[in-house]
């Protein structure tokens, strides 16, 4: 119920909602407000001006009371909206639930039928079927509802398909719930919001269409409607412009309110939508960069007192990294270990200058080869990226552009880093792919990402990262998404490449085993702070910080099983 309260508090929803309620309430009280019938024409009143006694808004070209016609038109549009939306919802929601929830065959039939409806220009059909509907706008709206239903069907079907794959629906089925109960309890609750939103837009569409058709003259002249009034006002535009104004204003107000209400509903019910990103602006920093103080002469990268904050729920900044300090020497491999939410990935992103837009660096410095990185713009960072500092991500598939072949993506990166010709770049990429353990480099070069296995995709990403012999490689959980046997191979590859190119590596991971396998030094991160760092052997064998000890103790023993075979 808090949703409703939130809606009431949203000014846009409250204002548009109230306008609609007022307008339709006026329509309902037509018998009380109207002094004349809508089609009652008085020839002495033709084009009577506004304010004429008994004709508050004047009379039209046939001497009919404009106010009364307006009120009746409200009712016509309300009925149109109800019929159009009602039919669309009844057809679309039931078909969507059935098509989404039950088997592929049922869905194929529904899909086919709705595609058929969708491919035809609806308005044309409504006009062509005029001899059939006999001009009754209610029948027209009935057909229009069917024409609107594919949109609803798609929304509902997609939501249901999404929900159906959720584990909680499987869990409900395992708990012994029948289909009807699952649809009612788990599925309907998810589709309710989007349906309400769509209904607001469909009402607007129904009213606009009904008016458009009436404007054309489709339908009975006996039924007062905005379209008919606008058409009459249009003919009379030079004589009495206000006749055109009233129905246009009211129609505009109703459709605008419905659209704006729909938008407000969407914002409230569907939660906040993602906002635009400011591409190419560089990450935000609110620190005054200071000259690197007493820098470690051997350090390639030095992170000091780094603090990164996100806007929190109450407007208070929420710090995800709090004063992290870390140094990496040339050719050194450092493991940055922590649990989820410890800020290890944020630290890595900050070095690359690719923190999300919302994040702000509020304190500290990142010095790479004597140069302060914090505060650099995207174009100042670009010469470093790829060439000096490279990145290997966690999830191999989502980090390749699905629309380009592997080769095209790698060539683009190599060329932007090294400025070499296309054919040179291709030769280089092919050699790299082979070096990274890909059996058939030519074929992989021409493959699209979706044709690769996870392990292959990760090799491709590593090839792309080391293409220009970077001095520092930042690998963010590079093996977490992979099978353990593939992980071992990828770690072998990283170790070999590191030695070959003498790169420094910052390896972000949650796995102490990975650190033990490949790193010389380790830094342990807890809630945004680095609590312990040092030589890998020393820290893993004799952890000093309590948190490190706790983590190491949590590792499941690798030798003795603790349970015996039962009975």
């Amino acid at each position, binding site marked *: 119920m808090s949703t409703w309260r939130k809606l009431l508090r949203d000014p846009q929803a409250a204002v548009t909602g109230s306008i609609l309620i007022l307008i339709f309430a006026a329509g309902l009280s037509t018998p009380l407000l109207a002094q004349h019938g809508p089609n009652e024409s008085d020839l002495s009143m033709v084009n009577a001006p506004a304010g004429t006694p008994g004709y508050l808004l004047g009379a039209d070209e046939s001497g009919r009371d404009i106010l009364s016609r307006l009120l009746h038109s409200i009712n016509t549009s309300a009925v149109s909206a109800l019929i159009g939306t009602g039919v669309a919802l009844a057809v679309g929601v039931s078909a969507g639930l059935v098509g989404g929830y039950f088997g592929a065959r049922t869905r194929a039939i529904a899909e086919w039928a709705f595609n058929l409806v969708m491919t035809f220009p609806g308005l*044309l059909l409504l006009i062509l079927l005029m001899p059939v509907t006999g001009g009754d706008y209610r029948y027209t709206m009935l057909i229009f509802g069917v024409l609107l239903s594919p949109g609803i069907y798609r929304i509902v079907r997609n939501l249901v398909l999404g929900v159906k794959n959720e584990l909680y629906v499987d869990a409900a089925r395992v708990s012994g719930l029948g289909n009807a109960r699952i649809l009612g309890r788990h599925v309907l609750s998810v589709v309710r919001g989007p349906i309400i939103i769509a209904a607001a837009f469909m009402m607007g569409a129904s009213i606009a269409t009904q008016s458009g058709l009436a404007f054309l003259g489709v339908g009975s002249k006996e039924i007062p409607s905005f379209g008919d009034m606008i058409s009459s006002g249009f003919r009379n535009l030079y004589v009495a412009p206000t006749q055109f104004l009233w129905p246009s204003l009211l129609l505009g107000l109703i459709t605008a309110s419905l659209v704006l209400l729909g938008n407000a509903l969407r914002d409230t019910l569907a939660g906040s939508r993602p906002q635009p990103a*400011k*591409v190419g602006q560089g990450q935000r920093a609110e620190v005054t960069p200071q000259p690197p103080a007493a820098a470690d002469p051997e350090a390639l990268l030095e992170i000091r007192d780094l603090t990164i904050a996100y806007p929190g729920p109450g407007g208070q900044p929420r710090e995800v990294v709090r004063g992290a300090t870390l140094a990496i020497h040339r050719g050194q491999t450092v493991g940055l270990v922590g649990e989820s939410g410890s800020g290890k990935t944020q630290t890595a992103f900050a070095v690359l200058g690719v923190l999300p837009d919302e994040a702000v660096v509020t304190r500290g410095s990142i010095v790479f080869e004597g140069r302060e990185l914090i505060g650099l713009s995207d174009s100042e960072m670009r010469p470093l990226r*790829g060439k000096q500092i490279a*990145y290997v991500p966690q999830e191999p598939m989502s980090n390749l552009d699905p*629309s380009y072949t592997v080769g095209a993506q790698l060539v683009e990166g190599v060329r932007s880093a090294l400025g070499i010709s296309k054919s040179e770049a291709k030769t280089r990429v092919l050699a790299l792919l082979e070096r990274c353990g890909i059996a058939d480099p030519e074929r992989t070069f021409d493959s699209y990402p979706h044709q690769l296995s996870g392990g292959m995709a990760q090799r491709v990403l590593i090839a792309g*990262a080391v293409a220009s012999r970077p001095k520092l490689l930042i690998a963010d959980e590079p093996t977490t998404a992979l099978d353990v046997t593939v992980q071992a191979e990828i770690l072998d590859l990283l170790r070999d490449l590191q030695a070959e190119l003498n790169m420094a590596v910052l390896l972000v991971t949650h796995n102490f085993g990975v650190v033990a396998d490949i790193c010389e030094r380790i830094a342990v991160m807890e809630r945004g702070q680095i609590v312990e760092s040092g030589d890998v052997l020393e820290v893993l064998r004799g952890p000093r910080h309590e948190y490190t000890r706790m983590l190491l103790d949590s590792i499941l023993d690798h030798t003795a099983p603790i349970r015996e075979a039962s009975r």
Partner: protein
Amino acid sequence: MLAYISRRLAAGLVLALLVTLITFLMLSLSFQDVVRTILGQSATPESVDAMTKQLGYDRPVLVQYGDWLLHLFRGDLGSSVYTSLPVASSVLQRLGVTLSIIVPALIITVLLSTFLGVWAASRGGIADRVAQGLSLVGYIVPGLLLAIALVYVLAVRAKLLPATGYTPLAENPGAWLRSIAIPVVVLVIGGVANMAAQVRGRMIDELRRDYVRTLRTRGISTTSIVVRHALRNAASPALTVLSLEFIQMFGSALIIENVFALPGYGSYAFNASLQGDIPVIMGITIFGVLLVTVVNLGTDLANGWLNPKARVH
């Protein structure tokens, strides 16, 4: 590839048959009224019967439909009950007028929506507010009102453009441009409202994807990331919207043509429907379906080119 295209065209043909059959069956419910409309209110029952017989409406419906189909296969769509003009050539001529509004409108809509959507999604701030405001205006104001308002301001008051009428392109290109200007603007405003919002949403989603970050770490330029990578990935879903947009515009054009008294498809359909001119209605229906089939096929092929996963082999 060729097999795919011919399969799709065959499916389109089946669709056309089905839609025309349904339309014919529904229309057949009102053949009596049609005859009465032709003869006028004062017609005697005898003359109505005679007319019904003359038009062949007394035969079983399926036989009539089969007859229509047979003629169709011979390339004959019949002729108008009223004017006796051949349906096929009239429909094509009218379609030409409507397409000469829709095609320019669609092209401008795509260019403008892409620009606005990309600008809003990759710049944020004021750019985003401007783009969102524009598309909201297009959504809120019904096309009908917009058309009338523009006629009033640009044609009636400022006398910059003709209020009504159509000049064929071949006759006088300048006059043609002036005659379609306002209708095109009306269609574009409605179209951009919908499409720019779609492009913006898709672009925002794309720019937040992991591969964009990885491309940035490779030192690739912002322009390349936005245009070559993100826009290309956003374009595939936006194309589906485009084909729907075309159908939508086709519908809107019907009303707009009426406001501007353009001799297009819509007014032709409207008159035929009002008069119960069955051969013309059927001709309009089948051309409508075929047009939609071709547009959908075109979108699917473009989609396959853009999106390797959807590529047909």
